[in-house]
């Protein structure tokens, strides 16, 4: 159902269309047709003039007062300037943050590369340098800095997770055994390991001797 106002408008343009015409927001073909209608229609021309005067009043108020969200609608150019300004501020801030992040990333990247190289070095050391040599180096370093008392020289018998070993004169002989082996001292200068051979089922006892 149309209102009395709508019925009275007949072939006249809608008020929203007149408002858009007043703010120069209509596309030009429609604007051209509406202009022809306004020239011929006093009623619509009056309505459009009211829209124009109201828009001028809004613009005047907007220039003299702080722009609010509602008022900004009345001044698209100012709103555009503010929005562009805000965007510029945002972009500048983002660039600042971006530079800070890059610096951090660069420092982190350096730390990662350093840690990776250290890990690679440690892995290479563990895979290639025998444990005894590593221990010897560590003990030597400790001795140099005075953190450790001097170690005995001569023959050393020891058990390792893999077997029992005798070290002397820079060489090491290891008799390997499975993890289930029981390792014991087997004499005044001997360490032994006892296990059941999985293949033969026979008990095997290995010993290393040092003097």
């Amino acid at each position, binding site marked *: 159902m149309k209102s009395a106002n709508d019925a009275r408008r007949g072939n006249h343009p809608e008020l929203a269309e007149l408002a858009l015409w007043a703010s120069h927001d209509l596309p030009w073909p429609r604007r051209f047709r509406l202009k022809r209608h306004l020239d011929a229609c006093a009623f619509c021309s009056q309505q459009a003039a009211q829209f124009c005067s109201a828009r001028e009043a809004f613009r005047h108020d907007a220039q003299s007062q702080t722009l609010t969200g509602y008022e900004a609608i009345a001044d698209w150019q100012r709103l555009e300037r503010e929005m562009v300004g805000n965007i510029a501020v945002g972009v500048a801030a983002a660039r600042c943050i971006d530079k800070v992040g890059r610096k951090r990333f660069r420092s982190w990247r350096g730390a990662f590369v350093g840690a990776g190289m250290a890990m690679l070095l440690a892995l290479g050391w563990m895979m*290639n*340098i*025998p444990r*005894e*040599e590593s221990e010897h180096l560590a003990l030597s370093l400790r001795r140099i800095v005075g953190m450790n*008392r*001097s170690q*005995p*020289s*001569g*023959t*050393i*018998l*020891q*058990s*390792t*997770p893999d*077997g*029992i070993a*005798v*070290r*002397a*004169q*820079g*060489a*090491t*002989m*290891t*008799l*390997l*055994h499975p*993890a*289930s082996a*029981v*390792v*014991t*001292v*087997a*004499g*005044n*200068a*001997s*360490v*032994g390991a*006892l296990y*059941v*051979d999985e*293949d*033969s*089922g*026979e*008990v*095997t*006892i*290995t*010993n*290393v*001797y*040092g*003097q």
Partner: protein
Amino acid sequence: MGNRLRNLGAAFVLLIFGALQACNSAYAQDAPRWLSIEFPQDSPVLPVSSDLGPIVRQRGMSMVLGIHTSLMLRNTGSRTICGLTLRVEAPDLTPSGRGSVSVPSLMVRPGEVFPVRMDVEVRRPFDAKTEGPIIQISLDCVLFSDLTSYGPDRLNSRRALVVYELEARRDRRYLAGLVESQQWTQLRQELNFGLVDLTPPQLGFELLHGPQPVGRNEQAIPVGVVPFRGSPVQPMGGAAKLSGNEIRAPQVDVRNTSQKAVRNVEMGWILRDQRGRDFVAGSVATPVSLGPVQSGRLTEQGTLRFSQPGGQPVTIDAVMAFVNDVEYADGNFWIPSRRDIIEATSDPILRRALSTSPEQQRLAEVYRRRGMSGLEAELSKLK
């Protein structure tokens, strides 16, 4: 300049790598000369196969030669073999270091073939010079079922083989008695219910010889004793110097309570850590001349350092000693009976540790693989 340095560095690395590979392949080609297996011509046991192709690899600036196989031996004599020890030597280590592989609890009849597992690795610097083989395997001692032996016995292995054989006979009799009396529950308990003990109580050892610096917190502690009622030699007490995870110069006073002269006493050592766990650390045979009803002191030289198998030090809280076996002057031996062990301690874990012999472990493996019928067959075969 930088590129040039990089190129030089890469060339140097390639040169080193190539040199190491060349050494490696040269060692591999010369591998047969690295190993010698020597048995006397009149030996009652001879190798059937010597397929011990060594594995050579490099570790840092060292070379590692390894043998990982079973040496097949044949009893070429006329007597049953019940134990054997092979000597494993590396000229790089001798005269101070050597090794051995023993197989006790055997029952190899004349003509039979049996394996001896060899897992040996020798690590030596690349620049070490040795003429002749790197690893030498030779016969040290063969023990026959009548407890006579053959071999040079340079490692005093005959004594150990005899003790193993006596323990084996003791344990076979004990387990056969349980079978005959149908004490199945007790039998299964003795054999760990056929389960593999994947985490046996383990200690890591370092046995150090030569003059050792005295530890800052070294303290003298008494050595407790675990007496066996039937032992002809009774421990009276002792002392040791303890410093963290190191024990130095433990000594035990003993008395020969028998009417026979004693020439060797093997003392077993039990360690208790701070958590109250007992470990049988091993046993040490000490030559001692003890006349009837005579006292003496057994002193061990060197320093023992204990750790977890992974390397973490184990702090020792107490030390105990027991007489593992006694060798009389006439060559006979005494070993503790099962009753002696049962009466010695009420701690089931310690009792189990004291009574676990190589033969019991072998029979437990038989039970695990072949069940009760297999165990009965094995025990009846060994009667």
